[in-house]
Every structure is written in structure tokens, then in C-alpha cells.
């Protein structure tokens, strides 16, 4: 079982790396935000899987915080982006 969890863990890290690469080089600024959002949701799953892999799944609280902050950060980015959008 832990073999499967380890494999899943590595695969999620690959997805995270891809999302990070998307946010590094993106055609539009919205793609960057999209990559960052995907990175955030994947880290939530990553923490959950790592908790089970290490045998201490009682740290799922941190995954909840990630989900919360990811959502609030996303809203904040969109909100302040509306203010900053006109580039002189």
C-alpha cells in the first residue's frame, strides 16, 4: 500500500512541477493565475497523501488551510488585478 502512496506522491509532484512551469512561462497573465491555482489545489492533495504516507494523517488541518488560503488568494489576485489592469 505504501508503495502506491509513494508513487501517487511522486506523480502529484510531477503535476505540481508542470503547473509551476506553466506559471513561469505563460502567454497571458490569466494563464499564470490558472497555473498558480492548479498548483494550490494539487498541494492540498499532496499534503493529504503525504500525511498517509508518513503514517501521521492527523495533520490534515494544514491541507484545509491550504485550500482556504488558495481560494482567498485567488479572489484577492482577481480583485486587485482589476485595479492594476490598466498598464500605462
Amino acid at each position, binding site marked *: 500500500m505504501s508503495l502506491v502512496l509513494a508513487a501517487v506522491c511522486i506523480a502529484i509532484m510531477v503535476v*505540481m512541477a508542470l503547473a509551476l512551469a506553466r506559471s513561469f512561462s505563460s502567454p497571458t497573465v490569466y494563464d499564470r*493565475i490558472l497555473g*498558480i491555482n492548479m498548483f494550490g489545489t494539487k498541494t492540498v492533495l499532496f499534503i493529504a497523501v503525504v500525511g498517509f504516507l508518513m503514517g501521521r494523517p*492527523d495533520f490534515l488541518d494544514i491541507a484545509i488551510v491550504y485550500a*482556504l488560503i488558495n481560494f482567498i*488568494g485567488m479572489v484577492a489576485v482577481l480583485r*486587485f488585478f482589476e485595479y492594476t489592469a490598466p*498598464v500605462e
Partner: protein
Amino acid sequence: MTELIDLVLLAMLALTALKIIFLKDLFAVVMLFGIYSFLSALIFINLDAVDVAFTEASVGAGISSVLMLGTLALTGRTEKENKRSSLLPLLVVTVTGAALIYGTLDMPPFGAANNPVHEHVAPRYIEESPKEVGLPNMVTSVLASYRGFDTLGETVVVFAAAIGVLALLGVRREKTDNVRQSGFTDHYVLRIIAKLVIPLIILFALYVQFHGDFGPGGGFQAGVIAAAAFILYALVYGLPSAFRVVGPKFLQGLASFGVLLYASVGLYSMFKGGQFLDYNKLAVDPLAGQHYGIIIIELGVGITVFAVMLSIYYAFASQTERGNT
């Protein structure tokens, strides 16, 4: 497995830092800084520091990024082309980095159990704190009980920072008769979902506040999460609506109340015949006294951090809304 995860995460962290150096779009810089904080919090989890990861994820990634975004809205989002040569800074950085790397060679190897760090007070904390304080979470016992004086200092520093920000920026209350439309007026889905999510976040903040003795969490984290819920409300529904829910004046009172609550526990224990912040004297049974003391001071920390973070956000957001009409 731990080493592998550590290595991959550190590599991502290094790449993110490199990317931040070369980006000129400050908006992207701040978003990548949010990712940087998230990644470092993942490293903290991997290195067993769950409480620290909790704090970094909520404070570093959440509040810092939001404040930086608010500043960018006022100062413009592109960095101007730098005409100075970057050779000298590069030289300085290389020399300093080489010196530091030379210094690390004298450090004890990473992760060894007999490093000097682990042989001073740490064994006592690990072995005695469950008996002396009676809490399973050693970080909370050290933070609130053994180093309670230090934590009082940190709370006062946070409070002082709020005073500094408010003195520099101030919160302008807009008159109620000419409230501009602010917030996401046309994002109906977002408005409904925010209404649904905010109670959940506040509930979770209360859970973190009172479960911090047994799992990761505590006053600092809970205060920030509760502030994040109200920040979400202010972002979606606009600042004037948020002022009607929690006013800036009320928050200033709340911030000082938290610090006073913390300090009054210390004074009360002196009054009962112990030292300052000596929780053993708070009740007949020392263990119960420790428990009362920790719950009350964590509450004080939580209230102060909540009020400070929210007033700092108010200060920045009212500048932004005023500057962009």
C-alpha cells in the same frame, strides 16, 4: 522518501526564487512569492514542523501576498528597466554565498540525532513537557508555558506593528451617503459562494484556536484564519460593507484587549503568589492551572492577531479604494 520529497521541493523553491529575480512584472512576482511561501510550508511539513507550516501557509502565503497586492495596486505593476550594471551585486552575492557555504562545512550533518542542537534543552521539553504541562503538542507547551514571556513580547510586537501601520496610513471611513460600488458586483457566483464559505472558515478558525493544544494550531494561526474570512468578505462585498460588520475602531479596541488579556494572566498569577505568567498557581491542581493559563493566553494571542491583521488589511484596502476612483 522524505529525502526525495525534500530534494524535489527544494529544487522547485530554488527555481521559483530564480524566476522572481528575472521577472519584471511585479504582479507575477507577488504571485510567485505566494507559491514560494506555499512551497516552503510544504518543506516545513516534510521536516516535521507542522505548526510552523500551518503559520507559514496562513500568514506568509495568505496575508503577505494580499498586502503586497494591495500595495501594487497603488504603486503600479511593472518594474522599470534597470540601467545599472548588475555585476557588482553579483560579485557581492557570490562572495557572501561562498563564505556561507564554507561556513556550513563546519555544521553537524543534517538530521543526525546527536547534533548539539538536540542535546541542550530539547530532551527536557520532549520528555517532561507532557508531564509538567499536560499537553500532547510540545510546540504549544513550549510556546505558551515555558517561553510564555517571549510570546507576550511577540504579541506586543505585532500590536506595535498595527500601531505603526495605522499611524502611517490610517483608516478612512467613507461617508455612508456616498458609498461607491466596490467589491465584485457582477460576480454573482462568487458572492453566493463567499457567503457559504465564510461561516465554514470562521468555524475552522475556532477549531484551530481550541484544538491547538492537541494538534497543530493555536492562537497565531486561528487569528490569521479568522482575519482571512473577513478579508474574503471585504474583497467580495467591498470595504464599506465590511466596515458595517466589524468597524475599525472596534478592531483597535479588540487588539489592545488581547494584549491586556495576556498580560493580566501574568499579573493574576503574581497576585496569587507566583512569578509572572506562572500558570501553576492559577488553580489548586498545577496541571489544571497550566491548562487554564494556556487556553486564556492563546485566546489573547488569537484576538490580538485577528484584530491586527484585519486592521492592517483595512488600512491598505482603504488606500487602494481611495486611490483608484
